[in-house]
């Protein structure tokens, strides 16, 4: 098990010094924690920042956060498990969130989802083998006027038709 002080210094389990890139990420995370005075009630906000920085919530990052906020690690895992926004597995470069809210459902979100699945060759919740795309369902992204909708990263694509999915994905390749 990597000791916490080692993590801070960027030393990994095998004893090798982590890339400067990793150290920079931890430094950024520390800044976020300083902003909230390491208060335990800021846990969700800090996890958001950690996921933004690392792409997902890695075990060593979770341990580090629990230690710094003086929270039992079980509580941190409990929070991560509760909220659907947090992920403990790496995500693809682009996360596709197909909206399955009511307005999109009424206007054929299911067909859109199936078109994505067919085009990417993965099921909902999976990531493509090349790590480019993760496919997920979102519960309403609040763009109901444009239903059916999918978000790729932060970008909303509206009024989708199942035969346009191929073209849409090409723009992200």
């Amino acid at each position: 098990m990597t000791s916490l002080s080692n993590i801070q210094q960027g030393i990994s389990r095998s004893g090798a010094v982590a890339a400067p890139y990793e150290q920079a990420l931890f430094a950024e995370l520390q800044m976020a924690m300083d902003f909230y005075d390491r208060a335990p009630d800021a846990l969700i906000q800090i996890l958001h920042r950690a996921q933004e920085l690392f792409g997902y919530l890695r075990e060593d990052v979770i341990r580090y956060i629990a230690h710094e906020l003086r929270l039992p690690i079980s509580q941190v895992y409990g929070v991560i498990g509760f909220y659907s926004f947090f992920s403990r597995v790496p995500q693809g470069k682009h996360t596709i969130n197909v909206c399955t809210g009511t307005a999109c459902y009424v206007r054929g979100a299911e067909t859109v989802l199936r078109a994505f699945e067919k085009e990417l060759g993965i099921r909902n919740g999976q990531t493509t083998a090349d790590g480019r795309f993760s496919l997920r369902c979102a519960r309403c992204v609040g763009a109901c006027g444009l239903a059916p909708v999918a978000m790729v990263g932060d970008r909303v694509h509206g009024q989708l038709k199942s035969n346009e999915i191929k073209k849409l994905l090409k723009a992200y390749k």
Partner: protein
Amino acid sequence: MTLKELYEWREQAKASLALRLGKAPESRPDAPCAYREVLVCAGGACVSCGCASVATAFREVLGQRGLREYVKLIETGCVGCCDLGVVVQVMPDAVLYVKVTEKDVKRIVEEHLRDGKIVTDLLHKAEDGQPYRTAAEMPFFKHQLKVVLENSGLIDPQNIDEYIARDGYLALQKALGGMAPKQVVEELLASGLRGRGGGGFSAGVKWQMLAAAPGPTKYVICNADEGDPGAFMDRSVLESDPHRVLEGMLIAGYATGASKGFIYVRAEYPLAIKRLQTAISQARDKDLIGERILGTDYCFDIEIRVGAGAFVCGEETALMASVEGRRGMPQPRPPYPTQSGLYGKPTIINNVETYANVPPIIRNGGKWFSQIGTPKSPGTKVFALAGKIRNTGLVEVPMGTSLRQLVFDIGGGVPNGRTFKAAQTGGPSGGCIPAQHLDTPLDFDSLQAIGSIMGSGGLIVMDDSSCMVDVARFFMDFCVDESCGKCPPCRIGTRQMLHMLTRITRGEARPDELERLEGLAGVTAMASLCGLGMTAPNPIRSTLQHFREEYEAHIRDHRCPAGVCRQLLRYSIDVDKCTGCGLCARACPAAIIHKFDDKRKYWIETDGCVHCGECFEVCRFDAVLKQ
């Protein structure tokens, strides 16, 4: 900044907004064009239609033509007609251009801004082809009354000067300058404002309870965790007019004696979070938030807390747990939040739209507000129109407007020659309103009487291609996913109801399934801990009440009248239309589509069909029929 300085600031700001309010200044005789303003909608929907590149194109073209001195470009919040994005308004003529792309920018600049001629083919047109020149002429806007959305689509949400010019922070000024906290609460009680989050509890009573609560530490929370699928009112208000919500919270803090506020926003709304952050820092710079606000003794700070994707966090006790950084699980009530809320201190939680109603109430008086709408549900309500409706988007109407007016006069009715079947309000806690109740006035009590609820204002229209059993299944699936798992009636009850509904949609239901479903719906509603479980059976109950025969068709005849439930569909091929191309046969995963021996046509074997619908989708000649 002091109260007096704020007054002077507003006078200055008002002058700079004159053009937008229809008062055009005289243009100089040597000017190449008249003074105008171009308002590009930067609401959520227009952002995804590419409003940023339209705005950039305007900047470029105006620069090239040397008109930047005369034409000001403003990126505003949501105009409301979300299906017509990108929406561009030209002031002071108030001309509204729809579906504007980068390519159209040059024409608008040259023809309208330079030569003063309206570009007719970019206007929105009525069905008979008659163009609407301004927003006010469009039926979509004509029947609306904007109180909460008065600034949406008119001002730049990222510019505090423009909010100030629209009498922003005037209500705060009025409260701090001459009203005792008690008077503020009384004004709110007189307005009769009811919480816009769904429950419809009197906001004034809530504030009164917090004001009466003992202790120096109290909290004000704004619930911006708009989780109902199909609702985007709060998102729009936050993105279009964030200062209005801050002002409402500041007044709430003053009236109740709280000194700290939290805004709990969904992580799914990054743009709203960004605009709120900008607004808070602008207000802080001007002494409108923080210590000694406007030179008085009143101190109030506002912090944003971002949610992480849990619908149950819209429930007030769960929301507070989440603000405290814990799992968002509800607590039994009492104690109510006004007694023991956030960090165990007295707290009030109101929805975004509730706070957005506060500044105009304080500005114009509670009596003014109570005269809008109906006596028991005063004021206006913002609805998010979506689904199978011609004009989707955000509308604000007085309470008591009938569903028919909303769907047909404003929404333009159901498109593609289909007929109206039901309107769904209140999200997963609400119900479906059938066509025979189209004349029901939309207010808290009338909706409850017909088995639905107002909810936060999402209104989804369904046409005859929607299966009401599948709609109920859809919402139950949502509740199963979002149940926090703390209390068994909700955790197990929703799952069992989902199983039953799924069996019905697959034609595998037992004959007594409906009675069993109704029984379980009653138990879940009665025994669940929080609002999520208590209201989870509502979609089932209302569809059973109004569309029972559809359930029976599924159970008894194994037939889905709307043709939605896949397992109940039977596919066949119309031999007259079949060209024998063989696409369907190749697509069929069960290999049950065969060629006739003597003809170059195909037929489908009924046994072995996996109901995937591939044949129906691949056929280019509409020869595959589904029943």
